[in-house]
């Protein structure tokens, strides 16, 4: 009997005590706490000072991409041309463990290029391959290879046409293209005949090529480099005891790959430049108000930047710029804090005020008073877009950079 009663009591308790529900809709002010969350929104019009720009962080040959562009403008044409060099296998070819043979030339070669970014709206996209002097290097300029880009055309391929062919192969030229939908890129394979792929033994078989592109209106693509091409497969003729035999060495990559372009970016002035090639950064030093730093929490902070001129670049190549903070303020060589960053997209041709949400960064400054209150504006993908934007600096009183900060005052805890 006693056990049954205890079990009954236990059951009642378990049913009654298994859930705690305290939440109630507030009926203010009578049945709400006296304290309220107080939000302040302020526009800091003069807190950004001593801003400046620096260029040269990532050069064209350091970029992971080779940019090709043909963008006619009102006054000039933006032209960018990838250039690369493939070293040869030398004057002799290893036929066996104990025997080598002189390389007499090449029957053909197959060059593979990866188009890792393109504007699918571009029609009639054409790619032209030029033979360049093998002396091209990091000092090569647009003007220094203007001649070969005029008279050394070795192949033209219409990529749009090639994409429409059965199997995406041109039976006549031997060219083909593969669409890699996983990595969103095109693998373009060009067959070079003996004339196009001259194996010059005195040059150890080293060759250099340049690429120009064109479209119906404008064209802009990015070619991969390093692990994403370009690569060259030689089909050689080798002397073996007086007999010419065909040999196929291993695929060769391009130890040097870069791009040249014109016109070059305008020299830096008092404006705040971000982007371009070589890439430019801008530093903005912020006088972080104590009232904001001591606030309980910053819930939104927006950086306003007014473009001085329309953003430069191919119309389809919108690029992303990011705002970051620095570990220490050493001007142009300030080490950038990689932990937090806020971004916005820049559309070439636009002069609209650019807004970057920098809430994360200001929250970091509020939490760590030793952190330098300096903002760095830089392109997210450095030297991977030709686009560049220039903003008015703090000395331009009417259009200077501004911060709008929304923060919360400390809640009056412990007050009845």
């Amino acid at each position, binding site marked *: 009997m006693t056990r049954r009663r205890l079990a009954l009591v236990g059951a009642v308790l378990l049913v009654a*005590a298994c859930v705690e529900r*305290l939440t*109630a809709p507030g009926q203010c002010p009578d049945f709400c706490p006296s304290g309220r969350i107080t*939000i302040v929104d302020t526009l800091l019009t003069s807190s950004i000072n001593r801003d400046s720009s620096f260029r040269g962080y990532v050069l064209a040959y350091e970029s992971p991409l080779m940019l090709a562009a043909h963008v006619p403008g009102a006054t000039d044409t933006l032209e960018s041309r990838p250039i690369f060099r493939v070293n040869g296998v030398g004057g002799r070819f290893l036929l066996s463990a104990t025997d080598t043979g002189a390389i007499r030339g090449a029957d053909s070669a197959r060059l593979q290029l990866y188009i890792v970014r393109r504007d699918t709206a571009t029609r009639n996209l054409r790619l032209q391959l030029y033979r360049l002097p093998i002396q091209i290097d990091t000092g090569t300029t647009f003007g220094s290879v203007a001649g070969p880009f005029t008279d050394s055309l070795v192949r033209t391929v219409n990529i749009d046409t090639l994409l429409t062919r059965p199997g995406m192969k041109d039976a006549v030229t031997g060219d083909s293209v593969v669409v890699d939908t996983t990595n969103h890129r095109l693998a373009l394979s060009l067959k070079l005949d003996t004339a196009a792929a001259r194996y010059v033994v005195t040059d150890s078989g080293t060759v250099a090529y340049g690429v120009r592109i064109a479209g119906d209106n404008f064209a802009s693509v990015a070619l991969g480099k390093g692990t994403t091409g370009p690569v060259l497969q030689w089909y050689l003729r080798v002397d073996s005891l007086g007999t010419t035999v065909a040999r196929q060495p291993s695929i060769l990559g391009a130890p040097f790959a870069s791009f040249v372009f014109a016109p070059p970016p305008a020299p830096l002035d008092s404006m705040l430049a971000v982007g371009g090639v070589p890439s430019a950064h801008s530093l903005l030093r912020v006088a972080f108000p104590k009232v904001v730093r001591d606030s309980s929490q910053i*819930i939104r902070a927006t950086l306003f930047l007014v473009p001085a001129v329309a953003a430069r670049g191919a119309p389809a190549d919108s690029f992303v710029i990011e705002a970051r903070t620095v570990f220490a303020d050493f001007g142009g060589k300030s080490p950038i804090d990689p932990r937090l960053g806020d971004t916005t997209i820049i559309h070439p041709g636009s002069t609209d005020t650019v807004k970057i949400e920098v809430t994360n960064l200001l929250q970091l400054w509020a939490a760590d008073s030793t952190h330098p209150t300096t903002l760095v504006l830089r392109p997210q993908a450095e030297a991977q877009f030709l686009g560049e934007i220039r903003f008015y600096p703090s000395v331009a009183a009417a259009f200077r950079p501004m911060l709008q900060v929304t923060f919360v005052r400390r*809640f009056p805890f*412990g007050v*009845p």
Partner: protein
Amino acid sequence: MRRADRWTGGRAVGTAVVALALLTASRPVRLSGQDSQFGIRGLGTPGRWESVRSRSTGGAFGPFDPLSPLTDAPLADIGQLTATAAGGTSNRNATVGGTTTALRATRFPVMGVAGPVGPRVAVAAGFTTYLDKSWDVTLRDSLLLRGTVQRYTDEVVSDGSVADVRFAVAGRLSRRIAIGAGVHVLAGSTRETAERRFDDSTFHTVQQSADVRYDGLGVSGSVLLGLAPGLSMVAWARSDNRLRAKVADTTTAVTDLPRMAGGGLLFAPSPSARFAASAAWRSWSKAGAGAFDTWTWSAGAEFGSRRMPIRLGARGGQFPFGPGTKPPTEAAASVGTGRAFAQGRALIDLGLERLERRGGGLTERVWTVLVGITVRP
């Protein structure tokens, strides 16, 4: 020790362990009492300093109950070492502006131990809820921010309570007179959180929190008079100084606490029938705006043997915190019973209370299930 004694002692402990296990079967919660939305704007919800037995009689037996921390003098008759604990689950419907919200909470409002230290002197220690400060309020509103109306949801949460830790001593001066006194250390804390979540996620969620610690001190005294065989009277008074709230060692508020006084009458015409009535006054208006002095009364009865009695009672009065110029009113009815095990060494008390509070457009209706265990090893 005879075998029967060993058996009954073991059974008492076993019963207590089972009861304790049942009481703690729910998730662990704060040691606090029944809360009320009336207390959100004020200091909190004052606790009920009564054992389950007393509360089942509407609180009328509280001033005479040595296990209720309301008065100290009845401790003189405790007789043997006794420990008690109580738990309660409240299901509350709060109706305001035509909207009813169902709320639920489980609390352990009373724990204590008492026992004689001499032929005429007994001491007690324990704690009870002085102020419950657990609540959770959500609010939907909007504000104009950056030129746009931004809608948001606020949630302000307080989780914790202020406990009354009592050290009491009582002595019987004669067959008719017993006196008692107590020192009350008020201590507790709340974890308070304020959160605002904007519909527009561009604005980060506001989340602030703080641990608020409370302290205070009080003294109490009481006298128990035997007026005639079966007729007793008790009078008591208590004064608490102030409640200090501190956040990170910074005092954020100092609130005066009330003085209180009360009395009661107990009439036991036979061993199987006991009647009691009591009243109390508390000067809560010292706590500031929105607080009121209160009067409370209660009347109750207990029938049957002490082994398994039937209890019932009613109480009424005022609640100290609320909007407007008049204090909210409250009225309650309760019933209960108990069961003694192991020759009275273990007792389980059960109670059921129906409470209604009204004021400022808010009506609260509460069902509370109470369970108490008492062990006399």
